[in-house]
């Protein structure tokens, strides 16, 4: 059986759905036997879920205004160049 240290080295593979089934089985064997690594896996998964679940916030109004001004200038310049 893998040690905890070895298991943690392969944690990414364990979380990756495309990892080869043989490797997966060896990793799975460790998690079912080891309560500590079980908790680490569980809380790492939750960490990723919570980050993926957050929608980006809206941009501050003044930042947005300056972005659009810059873009408009650029677009106008292109129009002029093309005649």
């Amino acid at each position, binding site marked *: 059986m893998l040690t905890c240290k070895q298991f943690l080295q392969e944690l990414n593979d364990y979380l990756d759905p495309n990892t080869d089934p043989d490797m997966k089985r060896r990793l799975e064997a460790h998690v079912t036997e080891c309560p500590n690594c079980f908790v680490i896996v569980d809380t790492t998964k939750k960490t990723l879920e919570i*980050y993926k679940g957050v929608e980006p*916030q809206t941009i501050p109004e003044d930042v947005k205004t300056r972005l659009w001004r810059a873009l408009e200038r650029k677009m106008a310049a292109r129009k002029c160049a093309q005649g």
Partner: protein
Amino acid sequence: MSLVPSTTAPDVFDESALVAKARAGDAQAFTELVNRYERKIYRLAKHITQNDEDAEDVLQEAFLKAYEHLDSFHGNSKFYTWIVRIAVNEALMKLRKRRGDRTVPLDEPVDTGEEMVAREIAVWEDNPEQRYSREEIQQILDRAIESLKPDFRTVFILRDIEEMSTEETAETLGISVPAVKSRLLRARLALREKLTRQFKRKGEDAFAYL
């Protein structure tokens, strides 16, 4: 707040038509593309640079450059991946400049994932995202990212937030695939540790050297 994956990914067909129009000089079409992605690009820029002023510059530069170089976008990758690459390059340039000024703290201690360290082995309370306000969650997540070294947080942002592949991330950052993997592991473990301190169930205080 829900944990459903981001639904901002628009219809691909719809998008390639939009990109084609933008390339043909349709300002309206380009405007639509900016509207779709400005929030994500701004978040990315802020996460990498950790500086409001730099993030704003990156946002502007990324879309201005994209507009200027639309001709060189051939549509074999997604428009979003392309604009993310431009933004990441701009953001890294800002970061390097600041590192030069030494305003970015260098080498904060980080969980390496390679040594035996004391790790929190606490179970989380159920649905932490329902126990805190949206703003509180946002702040907790942002602070945790901010505490990572730039090399680690950049890999985490591209792989786990922007959902780029390992190969795309390696190419974008100009580093090897193994480097992406090891930085991602360290970043994930460090963030897990930080969020555990925040979200663990009351009375759970177990540590283990793993």
